[in-house]
């Protein structure tokens, strides 16, 4: 335990602590929130009187995260008749939270790392700036908590003031200038003596000894234990009992995934974009527009929660995202959620040295530094029907600036009243103020897009994702393989490398493109143009062709095109292959490429997941420890082949 400086500790007698809280309540400039009883349990709630405050509580039902990321909050108000007169919602009035336990304070500091990174969440930031935190040392230990063994029962940071009950009086440790001023203004205190400091230490030591639940693996080791036991039978065994209710994530102070939806009022004009808590144990968490679910088995979802806490976030931020509060254990009816029990069961098994196995260390360049939730106004310039199901949309940003995207990046297309959908950019980067997307009509947003007319307004967030590093492709032969709608993002890359200013930077180019049937081939006219460029080869195939369809080309899956390509040893090592297509296609095409002798590190794939927020916060697009919206959607195959969730 670090030394406590006598100068930052004040003493306040019990009745003066009550007056302090009552003075704060009377002041009315801030909402005063504290721990109160609810039946035999405790909750954080607005205080009307200091007598309600229960600093002797063990644990609250919900953590105080509800004051920073509320279960339901309005992100913005819109009017469908004036779609881009959008107002970001105001956050509540300033607040003082009294009685946060150290583990909850540590959880909040962890949330800061995610929500106050280079793409700050504005709402979270405002509430964080607006809130004064008065912590309290734990007085009664919750039966299911294992905070002492996580070293989260005490904290030296993250609070403005910290109270310690010294029987009849409280020690107040000052943690910030804000806290100091609050104390000076509203409370009567005296200086602390060395003996008070000794008492604080003794009390903390005593509380630590009261924990009966202990995790036997040091938190530094969680990552290595989990990674070594990714396929351990424990996941199947425990998840067999799982009710998939996600109560464990709802009550967790370090679960901060969210969903966003639009609500419109009965006048069909006014509406709100609303953010709600989401949970990775729920079935639809990873479901994308076309209906695909990426963590379909409850075992995978159950395991994901533990890996996110014990491996994925630790690798990314350096902390175990579990503070040992034990709330999940209480909320879980079959009692399978408490990480303490799971880690203890795994403690007898292997450790792994390769803790970064499910994670990609990669710096993402942030292009859009604006407010992360508010879309930029844009106008639909052109609609072009490509097939029965697919349409091309040309969109111009209202500020008339180019989108500034790289091939392979995506945007969030936002239609107020309906919602948002991630869609990859299909046009090559250009100085033009407009860009193109290709959309298949599958969900609400895409159906609405189909119904829109030229001149209609829509919103754009992004571009997001890493996109292709085109420099890496220079002086190489290129082999592009796309299936179905994968041609849409691939077209951005193809048109970029085939641009007359760029063409000479690349060697021979081979384009393989497979569709379900001749009717579904996109950009046939452009394919003909591509073929005309020097040293470009285009091979098309269709999975099936009905007799009366006019198709003289190859019939068969995309893999049937590979025997046609013959690369000698020299060529294959100097070839970069890019694959974009439906999830099922990747492993077969990768096999073909490896057979051709193309090295793993020369293979790039672009993967689709549910990229809901685009800024690495909402949690939906994760492939093991990787955020597709930040580290992807373009990946080097050699980097993600170890990720079990990449090519299921």
């Amino acid at each position, binding site marked *: 335990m670090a030394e406590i400086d006598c100068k930052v500790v004040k003493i306040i007698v019990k009745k003066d602590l009550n007056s302090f809280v009552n003075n704060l309540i009377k002041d009315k400039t801030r909402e005063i929130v504290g721990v109160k009883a*609810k*039946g*035999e*349990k405790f*909750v954080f709630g607005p205080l009307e009187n200091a007598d309600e405050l229960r600093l002797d509580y063990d644990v609250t*039902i*919900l953590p105080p995260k*509800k004051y920073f990321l509320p*279960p*339901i909050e309005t992100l913005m108000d819109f009017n469908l008749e004036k779609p881009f007169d959008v107002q970001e919602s105001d956050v509540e009035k300033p607040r003082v939270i009294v009685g946060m336990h150290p583990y909850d304070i540590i959880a909040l500091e962890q949330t800061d790392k995610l929500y106050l990174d280079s793409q700050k969440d504005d709402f979270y930031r405002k509430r964080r700036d607006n809130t004064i935190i008065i912590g309290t040392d734990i007085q009664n230990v919750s039966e299911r908590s294992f905070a002492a063994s996580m070293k989260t029962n005490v904290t030296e940071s993250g609070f403005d003031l910290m109270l310690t009950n010294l029987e009849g009086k409280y020690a107040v440790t000052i943690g910030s200038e804000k806290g100091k001023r609050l104390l000076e203004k509203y409370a009567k205190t005296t200086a602390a003596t060395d003996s008070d400091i000794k008492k604080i230490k003794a009390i903390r030591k005593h509380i630590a000894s009261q924990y009966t639940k202990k995790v036997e693996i040091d938190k530094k080791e969680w990552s290595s234990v989990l990674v070594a036991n990714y396929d351990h039978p424990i996941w199947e065994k425990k998840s*067999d*009992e*799982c*009710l*998939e*209710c*996600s*109560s464990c994530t*709802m*009550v967790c102070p370090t679960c901060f995934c969210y969903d966003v*939806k639009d*609500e*419109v*009022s*009965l*006048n*069909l004009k006014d509406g709100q974009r609303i953010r*709600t*808590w989401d*949970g990775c144990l*729920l*079935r*639809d968490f990873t479901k994308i527009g076309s209906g695909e679910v990426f963590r379909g088995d409850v075992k995978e979802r159950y395991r994901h929660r533990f890996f996110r806490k014990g491996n994925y976030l630790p690798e990314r931020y350096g902390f175990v995202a579990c503070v040992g509060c034990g709330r999940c254990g*209480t*909320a879980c*009816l*079959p*009692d399978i959620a408490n990480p303490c029990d799971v880690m203890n069961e795994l403690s007898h098994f292997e450790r792994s040295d390769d803790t970064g196995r499910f994670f990609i260390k990669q710096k993402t360049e942030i292009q859009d530094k604006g407010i992360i939730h508010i879309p930029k106004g844009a106008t639909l310039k052109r609609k072009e029907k490509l097939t029965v199901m697919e349409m091309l949309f040309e969109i111009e940003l209202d500020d008339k600036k180019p989108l500034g995207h790289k091939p392979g990046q995506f945007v969030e297309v936002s239609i107020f*009243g*309906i919602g948002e959908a991630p869609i990859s950019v299909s046009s090559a980067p250009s100085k033009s103020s407009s860009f193109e997307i290709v959309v298949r009509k599958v*969900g*609400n947003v895409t*159906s*609405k897009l189909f*119904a829109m007319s030229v001149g209609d307004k829509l919103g754009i967030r992004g571009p997001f994702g890493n996109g292709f590093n085109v420099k890496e492709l220079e002086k190489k032969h290129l082999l592009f393989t796309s299936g179905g709608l994968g041609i849409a993002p691939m077209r951005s890359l193809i048109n970029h490398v085939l641009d007359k200013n760029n063409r000479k930077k690349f060697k021979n180019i081979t384009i393989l493109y497979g569709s379900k049937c001749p009717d579904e081939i996109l950009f046939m006219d452009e394919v003909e143009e591509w073929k005309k460029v020097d040293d470009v080869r285009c091979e098309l195939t269709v999975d099936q062709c009905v007799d009366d369809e006019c198709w003289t080309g190859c019939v068969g899956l995309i893999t049937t095109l590979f025997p046609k390509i013959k690369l000698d040893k020299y060529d294959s090592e100097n070839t970069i292959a890019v694959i974009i297509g439906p999830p099922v296609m990747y492993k077969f095409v990768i096999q073909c490429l490896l057979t051709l002798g193309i090295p793993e590190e020369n293979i790039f794939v672009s993967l689709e997941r549910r990229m809901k927020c685009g800024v690495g916060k909402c949690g939906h697009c994760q492939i093991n420890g990787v955020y597709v919206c930040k580290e992807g959607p373009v990946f080097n195959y050699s980097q993600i082949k170890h990720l079990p969730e990449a090519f299921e």
Partner: protein
Amino acid sequence: MKPRVAFFDFASCEGCQLQIANLEGEILDLIEIVDVVSFREVMKEHSDEYDIAIIEGSITRPMDEKRLRKIRRHAKILVALGACATIGGVNKIRNHRPVEQVKKEVYGDTDFKDNEFFDTFQTKSINEVVPVDCYIHGCPINRDEFKQVIIALALGKKPEVPNYPVCVECKKNENVCLFELGKFCIGPITRAGCNAICPTNGSPCDGCRGILQKPQIECIMDILEKYDLTYEEMKRRCTMYNMSIFNPSEGMTFARRGSK
């Protein structure tokens, strides 16, 4: 043009339509966005020209089935309104017994042989007879959810029905879990969307919005044991909305195994 909406009722208490009538002032906003052409509960006019048919009630007679099929042919969008329509509702309790026995219990020995009004079969939900485009669950329905569905249909959007359990909403409301108060609640496996109104007010969930998934029987047994609850308590909770979280045959085995 505003979509034309017609309400129809089958075996039900009409409580869900009453919920809509109870929108009161908001009904005026509602008829700004849709044309109500038939709604027995609040108007006497009726028309068979409609785009959206909203059906309350379950199907209990061959003549109901015929009428429902006709409605389906007329309607572009068919909405099942309330638990009777979406899952069969309380009307399905009788399916536990043979139809003949039920008839005898209600009508005694009276012979209704040739009267189609009394000709009944096992209760069916709407989707057991015709395809349903959209569900508004609950007993009764949640008025806000009804409004959201109508708004979505008016905007040309497919209404979203929560595909997660009541626990999610209950946790957001920060309720003390009813299991901890010694009550058996079916919230963990029941579809949400009600904002956990029953548990929030201290009453365990009866599952009126339908079951999301069948839990493992061993799991239920462990939970009963953990919270010192009886098999009877659970069975009682599961009866009202016919929540067969176990097959009758499994149930028998289970009753013996967990005889508390």
